[in-house]
């Protein structure tokens, strides 16, 4: 009687034990979490899913007024609404996904405390529901884009645009891995929670969203290029707005950075997952 156990619960397990098989078995739970996120978002609202669009539109108008109108920050020749909308759309995806995964443990403590399922289901569902939101906003972006073209504004469409799915994937996994590390640490030491909200805001300004990378020179530019999100935003703007740069080196750097972080985050997450109920 040695081998017919289907489940062995031990104090320690391997450093990296992803258990993709059971993750796959719980795909319906992933679906339900996505559905829950979407459905509960607009419960008891009159405008319903329209809110997914209203938020970025209002933010874009505000940016046009503050950064474009008052501060006169260049958009490198691209029309302001498109420039800001593209940045906001991608940034929102990153920050929402990051928030979803960085709150995995604290927001779901009551559920995690009662039932076992692969915890990774929850952050992955967060990425997915935010992806749906991104797609809805993308439709808005495309409509505005077409509007500008009809109005006769010259907007290039470059083959680099084909990278879009890859860019989104990169953003998603950057958000996931950073978020998981934060969530693992905050489950025990709450201090970080306060820093994170502030840090995220700061980080937005360190990413070329409201300004083009070309506006920075010297050491500031080097610093911005060290930000692994920079090449992603630049590549998207390069693909459809005609501003920005496509840097293969930068994208490679971003990818490697993401993979290393993802690896670390999964190890940390794995460790915390086992015992976080005792410390949360």
């Amino acid at each position, binding site marked *: 009687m040695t081998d*017919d156990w289907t*489940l062995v*619960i*031990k104090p320690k397990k391997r450093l990296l034990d992803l258990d993709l098989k059971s993750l796959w078995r719980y795909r319906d739970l992933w679906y339900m979490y996505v559905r829950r996120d979407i459905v509960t978002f607009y419960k008891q609202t009159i405008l319903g899913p329209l809110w997914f669009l209203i938020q970025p539109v209002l933010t874009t108008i505000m940016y046009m007024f503050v950064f474009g109108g008052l501060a006169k920050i260049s958009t490198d020749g691209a029309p302001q609404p498109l420039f800001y909308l593209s940045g906001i759309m991608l940034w929102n995806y990153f920050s929402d996904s990051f928030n979803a995964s960085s709150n995995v443990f604290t927001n779901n403590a009551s*559920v995690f405390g009662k039932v076992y399922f692969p915890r990774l289901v929850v952050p992955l569902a967060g990425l997915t529901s935010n992806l749906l939101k991104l797609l809805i906003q993308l439709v808005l972006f495309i409509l505005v884009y077409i509007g500008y073209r009809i109005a006769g504004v010259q907007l290039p469409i470059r083959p680099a645009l084909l990278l879009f799915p890859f860019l989104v994937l990169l953003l998603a996994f950057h958000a996931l891995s950073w978020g998981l590390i934060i969530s693992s640490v905050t489950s025990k030491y709450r201090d970080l929670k306060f820093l994170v909200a502030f840090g995220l805001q700061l980080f937005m300004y360190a990413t070329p969203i409201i300004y083009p990378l070309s506006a920075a020179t010297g050491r500031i530019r080097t610093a911005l290029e060290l930000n692994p999100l920079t090449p992603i935003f630049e590549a998207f703007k390069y693909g459809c707005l005609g501003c920005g740069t496509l840097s293969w080196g930068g994208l490679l750097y971003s990818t490697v950075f993401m993979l290393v972080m993802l690896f670390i985050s999964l190890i940390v997450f794995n460790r915390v997952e086992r015992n976080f109920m005792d410390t949360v």
Partner: protein
Amino acid sequence: MSDIAIQFENVGKLYHLGSVGTGTLSHDLNRWWQTKILRKEDPYLRIGETNDRAHRGNSDFVWALRDINFEVKQGEVVGIIGKNGAGKSTLLKLLSRVTAPTTGVIRAKGRIASLLEVGTGFHQEMTGRENIYMNGAIMGMTRAEISRKLDAIVDFAGVERYLDTPVKRYSSGMTVRLGFAVAAFLEPEILVVDEVLAVGDAEFQKKAIGKMQDVSRGEGRTVLFVSHNMAAVRSLCQRGVVLEDGGMAFDGGVNEAVDYYINGSSLAEDGLIIDSIQKKKSYLDLKEILINGTPANRTSLKPRQEFLDIVIRGTTQEAMKCEVKFIIKKMDGTPMAALIEGQYTGKLLDLPTGTFEIIKHVRLPKYLADGEYLVDLMLHQPYIQNFFVAINCLTLNINGFCDAFAHPLRLNEEGFIGLCSE
């Protein structure tokens, strides 16, 4: 293939008392230094103490569970009982993989579904239907599986009318019914249930217990059941495990386990009946209480014993209109027989101020079931006042009655009193 479904081997769980987060970073660093760099034993694992919540210990670490060793056979229904904080829930948490053990190994065969709470993951804004899917998915069911069972679940919960209403509009009882209904239609090989039946109305509790019986008896599944409801434990389980301060105190038949637990908790050590008085009028001074000729809180009725004597001696500074109330109960508290003569004849004793002596010569039924019973003794004026109250003041051992080659009655199968025919 052996028929063991779950095996606990030296399982232990250490908890850190006090507030987590103060000093944990330094402890973490120290632990890491000691174990990983110096390759020594974990400094915090040695100093844990047993889990006795009432006494202050010297250590910040406590073993919520320690040295748990037992096996559960396939199809067995095991009740886990113990006082609050004895480690029952921790044990279930380990088994349902909510948290990992500190030492030891648990091995299991088959899918484990744990019901540590009803309606886990219910979202207030979602409708009953959506929540059935959500909750089912959390428990490990697939969508197809839930769709197949949806009608049965809704029917069992009895909430059809509210199916498309958000759960926040439900009464708390309805939420619980819905949650339990989903869980009832899981089909795991091993079902782990924590005190969830304490909610819902009487009709639903009956339904829930019935469902659990079907699951265990009819479908041959293994069930681990934690509850403080001894009647439910007795009716559901075959085997009982008693936990005490994180360790195993008893493992055996469910009736013995329940008796062990109740004895252990209500009559801790041998004492006197008079010491178990919980309430007393200040003008009343009791000198002596004898039941069955002894002042001790433990006595036996022999076979063929026809009478039981109750003697109460004392003094009172106020006149009392009273009578003796004497109740024999099962170990789980169910009353079996009572002497409350004033209540059915209306005649009470008149005790003037001063010294008194009450002697009751109680005729016993001839055929009593053997076993251990608890006794309550009171001096009261029916429906008006109690002069003294002594709940669980005596453990009465009844040896039962049998003639020649016959057998005494068994309490749980045949009842307390044997009837005679002419």
